[in-house]
C-alpha cells in the first residue's frame, strides 16, 4: 500500500516537474542572477516538495514551489554574501553581473536590489502575480508588497529612463 502511494507520488512529482521546472529555473535565475544556482535551487525545491508532499497538495503546487524558490533564493543570496564577506570581496559580486563591465545596466541594477524587493519585482512583473498573490507567496502584507515594489521601481526608474533600449546583456 505504501509502495503504491510512493509510486503515485513519484508520478505526480514527475508530472509537476514536467509542467513547472523550466519556469521555476527562470524564476530562480531572476532572483539569483546565476543560472547554475537557479537550477540548483529548482532541483532543491522539488526535493523539498517531495518531503512536504501533503503541503504541496493542500497549498497548491505551483504557489508552494514558487514560495520555496523565493525562500531558497533568499537563503542562497544570504549565504553568498556571507562567503564574500569572509573572503573580503565586493558584495556586488553576488549580483552575477560581470564586474568587468563598467556600464551599470538594468540587469545589474535589478541584481543589486535587496532580496525582498527583487522578489517583489520579479513576482509582480515576471510571474505576473497580483499584489495579493505576491503578498501571500512572500508571507508579507499587501502594503509591504506595494511599498517594496514602489521603492524598487523608484531605484530602477533612473536607469529605466536613461536606458531606453533595455537591451539584455548576454552572459
Amino acid at each position: 500500500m505504501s509502495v503504491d502511494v510512493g509510486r503515485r507520488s513519484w508520478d505526480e512529482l514527475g508530472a509537476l516537474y514536467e509542467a513547472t521546472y523550466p519556469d521555476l529555473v527562470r524564476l530562480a535565475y531572476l532572483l539569483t542572477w546565476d543560472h547554475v544556482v537557479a537550477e540548483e535551487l529548482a532541483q532543491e525545491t522539488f526535493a523539498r516538495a517531495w518531503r512536504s508532499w501533503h503541503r504541496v497538495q493542500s497549498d497548491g503546487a505551483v504557489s508552494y514551489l514558487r514560495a520555496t524558490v523565493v525562500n531558497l533564493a533568499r537563503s542562497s543570496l544570504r549565504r553568498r554574501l556571507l562567503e564574500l564577506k569572509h573572503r573580503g570581496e565586493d558584495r556586488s559580486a553576488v549580483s552575477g553581473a560581470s564586474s568587468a563591465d563598467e556600464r551599470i545596466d538594468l540587469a545589474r541594477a535589478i541584481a543589486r536590489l535587496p532580496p525582498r524587493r527583487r522578489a517583489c519585482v520579479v513576482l509582480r512583473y515576471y510571474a505576473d502575480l497580483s499584489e495579493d498573490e505576491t503578498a501571500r507567496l512572500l508571507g508579507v502584507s499587501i502594503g509591504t508588497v506595494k511599498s517594496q515594489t514602489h521603492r524598487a521601481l523608484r531605484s530602477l526608474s533612473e536607469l529605466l529612463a536613461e536606458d531606453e533600449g533595455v537591451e539584455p546583456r548576454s552572459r
Partner: protein
Amino acid sequence: MTSQPTPEERLARFLHQRASQVPITADTLPLIRRRVRRHAWRRGAAALMVVVALLAGFIALRPAWDEIGPARRGAATSPATPACNFATADSGGHQVAVFLGKTLRDVGRRGFYANGALVVAKIGPAKASRYSYTGTQRPANGPAEPTVTPYTIRVLDRLRGQLSPTEAVIFGGRVGSCGQPVPPPPGLMPGRRAVLILNPPRFPGATYQAEIREVLPIQDDEVFAYRGFWLSADIPGPQRPGTYHAYDPFEPNNRPARGAWIPLSRIRAVTRQ
C-alpha cells in the same frame, strides 16, 4: 504613433527576455530523485544522532538523577509512601533499605560498590518524624505508632577516614512486605558504627542504586581493633570471592595497604566480638 511603454512594461519585458535566455538542463528528474534520497539519508542520520545523544546524556546523567531522585526500589519517599519489599527475606541478616543515591554519592567512585562491597558507616540520629512508617494496621484509638525506626547513616569516606557529608536513611529491621515491619537490628543505634554489606547493583553501571544487604553493628573501636585496619569498600576481585580489602587509616597518605585482603568470615568474627 505608438505610445511609449511605461517603465513597468519595459521592466516586465526585460525580465521575460532575460528569463527566456536561461539555459535549462533537460531531464534533471533523476538528479532530483537522488537528492530526495540524500535528504532522507541525512534526516535518518540526524535522527540517529539525536537518539544517540539522548542516550549518552541519559547514561551520563543517570547517577546524578539517582542522587536527587527517589530510591528506585521500595524506599519510602515521603511519610505517605510506605516502604515495603525492600529486600528478599531469604538472604539472611538484617535487611535494611537505604536511600542509596545519597549514601553512595561522595564515598566512592563509580563502580565502586559492585559485588557486595563493604562500607563502614556511622549510625546517625533517628529521623522517625520524617521517615516513619506506620504500617497498614493502625490502632483503633489514637495516632498510628511508628513500627519502623529509620536512622541516618553517614558513610565513612574510605580515603579520608571521615564522615561523608551526605547522609542516608536506613530503616531498621527487615521489611518483608508492606505492613510487616521487623524491629531494627540489635545494636544499630544512633552514634554507633556499622559495617554495611552492599548488594550488587541491579544493573551494570547502577552503582548508586545498590542496596544494603546486611548491617553488622560494631563498636566504635572494633574496626580499629582489627590489626589497625579499616575496612575498606574495595571490590573483591573475582579471583578472590568473599575477601575484602583493608587499609590503615593512620598510614601516611592514607593509602590502602595493598594485598591486605581479609576473608569475610574473619571480618564478621571480628565485628561480632
